[in-house]
């Protein structure tokens, strides 16, 4: 490469995304520091602490990121199946030799470091899914392709469920956006999905016969309004019957399928259970921490709730509490704005890709980051059940930071070569 080419190569990188990434990592580092900061033993820097380790992780992530940028993008396309197989092997291995932490057999100890294969599972799945779907791009979206694509996603999900790490497994379902974007699932799925979630919540909160009554009235009203259009009538009838069965099933599924602690988490979210010191302890403490932050927060290192260990897992899954408490509403909104910018930006990047592989992969990245963002923050403020997944780039942890960084930078690599190809 000549000097001009080198310059143009780096010039083609989407520096806005890199800046957003770096900002999030930095915010993460400061808040991990705040979360583990002990006012009685203020030490400037200590590699043994979480923020000390996190600085190493961030530094390593930087190296990983820029290494990815100088690798030929074709490498990622060609090795996608290999990476997938490797990660699947790791996911099997973790079930055998993994270390059980907090009820989940999710970690493989390597020296003092613990590798979490499920984090890399998302990366591998995105790559293989992009590889497969892009190979089918010239055909009209069909059931067979959808099925195989779904299998690519569900196989690692099954392995992760065996750990059992429900949170990480759920993150894979975010890839529904990819299928949606590529036309494998239609708008009606989004409507149905929304309806299903609504009915699920209602079924748990309200007596199911009341819901069925309401459903009947709503269906009747629609049927009356659309009585001239036979096609819609059938649809409404089918939807009504489906909802009926669904509502009746929810109770059964809730009682029989979900594990007690999952049921409790849902109950707490729905306000059916008031238990500030038991199952709801984490959530309650988390809301107290964030709520007490008020408009401008208590100031850096001034948070009392997080400082004095009221909030559990505060440097990993509940890192948002520290932000909420110390930076207040303003700080939270800024963080959410940064995330939203990144997510919207990723979708825009996806759409400007020339290759189907890159586009599909980009949507995969955006979907997974979105899911983590929504679920993680949502659980700390009590709008979704407590599901232990990290906030990308911010939560403490090497595996998650590296895998998300790799996820993002592979996309940036594709994006930079898109411009290169265009000249």
């Amino acid at each position, binding site marked *: 490469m000549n000097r001009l080419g080198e310059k143009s190569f780096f010039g083609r990188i989407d520096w806005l995304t890199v800046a957003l990434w770096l900002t999030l990592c930095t915010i993460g580092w400061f808040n991990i520091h705040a979360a583990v900061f002990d006012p009685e033993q203020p030490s400037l820097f200590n590699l043994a602490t979480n923020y000390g380790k996190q600085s190493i992780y961030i530094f390593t992530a930087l190296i990983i990121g820029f290494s990815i940028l100088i690798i030929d993008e074709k490498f990622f396309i060609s090795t996608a199946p290999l990476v997938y197989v490797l990660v699947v092997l790791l996911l099997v291995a973790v079930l055998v030799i993994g270390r059980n932490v907090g009820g989940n057999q999710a970690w493989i100890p390597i020296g003092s470091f613990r590798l979490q294969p499920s984090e890399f599972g998302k990366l591998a799945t995105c790559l293989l899914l992009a590889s497969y779907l892009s190979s089918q791009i010239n055909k009209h979206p069909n059931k067979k392709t959808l099925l195989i694509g779904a299998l690519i996603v569900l196989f690692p999900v099954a392995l992760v469920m065996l750990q059992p790490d429900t949170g990480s497994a759920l993150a894979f379902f975010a890839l529904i956006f990819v299928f949606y974007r590529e036309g494998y699932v239609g708008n009606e799925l989004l409507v149905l999905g929304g309806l299903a979630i609504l009915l699920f919540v209602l079924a748990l909160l309200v007596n199911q016969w009341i819901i069925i009554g309401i459903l009947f009235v709503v269906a009747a009203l629609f049927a009356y309004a659309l009585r001239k259009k036979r096609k819609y009538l059938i649809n409404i009838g089918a939807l009504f019957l489906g909802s009926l069965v669904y509502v009746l099933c929810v109770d059964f599924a809730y009682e029989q399928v979900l594990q007690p602690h999952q049921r409790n988490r849902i109950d707490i979210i729905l306000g059916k259970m008031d238990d500030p010191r038991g199952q709801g302890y984490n959530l309650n403490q988390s809301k107290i921490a*964030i709520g007490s932050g008020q408009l401008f927060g208590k100031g850096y290192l001034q948070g009392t709730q997080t400082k004095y260990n009221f909030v559990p897992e505060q440097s990993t899954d509940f890192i948002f509490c520290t932000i909420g408490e110390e930076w207040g509403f303003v700080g939270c909104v800024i963080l*959410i704005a940064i995330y939203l910018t990144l997510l919207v930006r990723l979708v825009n990047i996806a759409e400007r890709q020339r290759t189907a592989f890159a586009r599909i992969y980009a949507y995969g990245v955006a979907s997974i980051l979105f899911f983590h963002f929504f679920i993680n923050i949502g659980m700390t403020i009590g709008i979704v059940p407590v599901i232990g997944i990290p906030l990308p780039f911010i939560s403490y942890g090497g595996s998650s930071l590296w895998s998300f960084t790799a996820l993002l930078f592979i996309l940036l690599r594709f994006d930079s070569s898109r411009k290169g190809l265009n000249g």
Partner: protein
Amino acid sequence: MNSFFARKFVIQGIFIAVALIIVVRLFYIQIIDKTYLLSANNNVLRKVVVYPARGVIFDRHGKVLVQNEPVYDLLVTPREAKDIDTALLCQLIDIDIEGYKTRMQKAREHSPYRASIFEKQLSSATYAQLQEHLYKFRGFYVQNRTVRSYPDSIAPQLLGFIQEVNEKDIERSNGFYRPGDYIGGAGIERSYEDLLRGQRGVKNQMVDALNRPKGVFMDGKYDTLAVSGEGLITTIDRELQVLAERLMKGKMGSVVAIEPATGEILTFVSAPSYDPNMMVGRQRGNNYMKLLNDETRPMFIRPIQASYPPGSVFKVVAALTAQQAGVIDQNTSFYCPGGYRYGGGRAIMRCTHVDGSTDLIKSIQRSCNTYYGYTYARMIDSRGMSGPRAYDLWREGLLKFGLGHKLGIDLPGEKPGLVPTSDFYTKRYGSDKWRSGFNISLSIGQGEMGITPLQMANIMAIVANRGFYYRPHLVKGIGEKKIIKKEFTEKIDAGVDAKYYEPVIEGMSRAVNMPGGTAYSVRIPGIEMCGKTGTAQNPHGENHAVFFAFAPRENPKIAIAVFVENAGYGGTWAGPIANMLVEKYINDTITLPKYIQDRIYNANFIPKPAKKESIKKDTTSSKKDVPRQTVRNTPPEEPSNAAFYVHHSQIRNRYE
């Protein structure tokens, strides 16, 4: 680019919508809903109760009788307790693994999230050892509080003890006490609980979720200070108390000494005694049971709870009330042929002597039963009224002397003693036609009469004061201002004019200071002590020795009653004890020959446990507070008589 390009906007729309939902939710919990802010304050600010130091108890000269000593309670929050090295912990606080498990189970039942007491009152030494290892025991922490300590190990019955509140206490206090608090359980600790306990304070402490203290909130701006309990200055003379307890060692009985001019109790001994420090610390439970089961009943407060027939010392009261009633005067003489015949001459109440003509002074000096037989006969039979009516008048005089009712000492559990009403005898006789012969033994303080040692000492105070007394009390000063309760400053009239006291006092003086007096052997050089010996019948063994006295005759400083159970003649055992205490108090020396002193110190009158069985029978068969005729008995020193009744309370109180 393909046909589904537009779906980009749906996806971005969802992203934005979700972000908005989050922001709205954040706006709600951070800006609108203030309950989280309040919860946060409660979370971090733990209101810690600061226990006040309990009031210190001093003797009359400001020497400490009861003080506070720090101890350490080990607390545990079960949920936090993980990976505990149980063996080490058990070894450090000296419990076994079973004990660990049961304690842990109890704590868990109380609450898994809240701290409960794991082990109480660890000593400073145990705590020092434990503290080094405490960091290994997650969920355990130590809270310090104070317990009582008694530097001289004296006067447990009057000082009392503190104990954990029970549910009734909490209920009664309207929630002032909380479980785990201490409350005065007996003695002064109980009667002055309200003053001694002080006022709890509240400290606002910053704590983390594990309840670990993390500093003081707002530099203590919102803290309230604990107010220490009031100190109490008792009337007790520590040195005299120590001496009295030493003298009473190996004996059962009481010593009560009163300052006549004020009613202040100088010495208050109940023997056998115990070390009050036994009621403190981790062995308290065991010790308490041991004391409860002790045959000799060390927890029994003899000076105010035991009542005995006073014996001859009662003659002092009889002489005074008879003069006031006008049935005798100081010149009245009776002829003593060695006994008093009554019941138409068929029965006799013997004297120890045949003194012939005896006047009032001599009757006291020589303790003449005959004289008091005649006196009582005059009181009951010769006043122109029916026997019961005359008896009631006689009884009224006794009540004014503080007999037959509680004196109102500032100590819980005082017993009234006993002077039966006329109805009691009417009922027993079958009609109201009875006369003095029916209960003649009352004339010399025998029969159905019960007097507590405190009442006995109080009689001496009345005589010393020539006609009045102050309610005997143990606390003369409360707090820094040394306030004294008003009821202890009110003069109480004993109902006998001052002029009638002189002959009696003269008789008592001669009893001690003149050869031939019953207590001549215990006279004190340089001090004119006026005293009277007595012997009370005991159907179960040796009689009880009684001696009461006051000194000096003019401007008396001390009135004392000594009661030694099973010791026989009062002049031999009770007298020397009173002698030493009085001389010690007034002259701060003891001149009694060394061999007599040693004899007293070494004497042991505590009955052998062999008597257990008969005692137990008595206990079970006698629940009611009704005097009853029991066993006929022949005292060696005083004349006996077929009509002698042994007072029932004498047995009951000893072995109850």
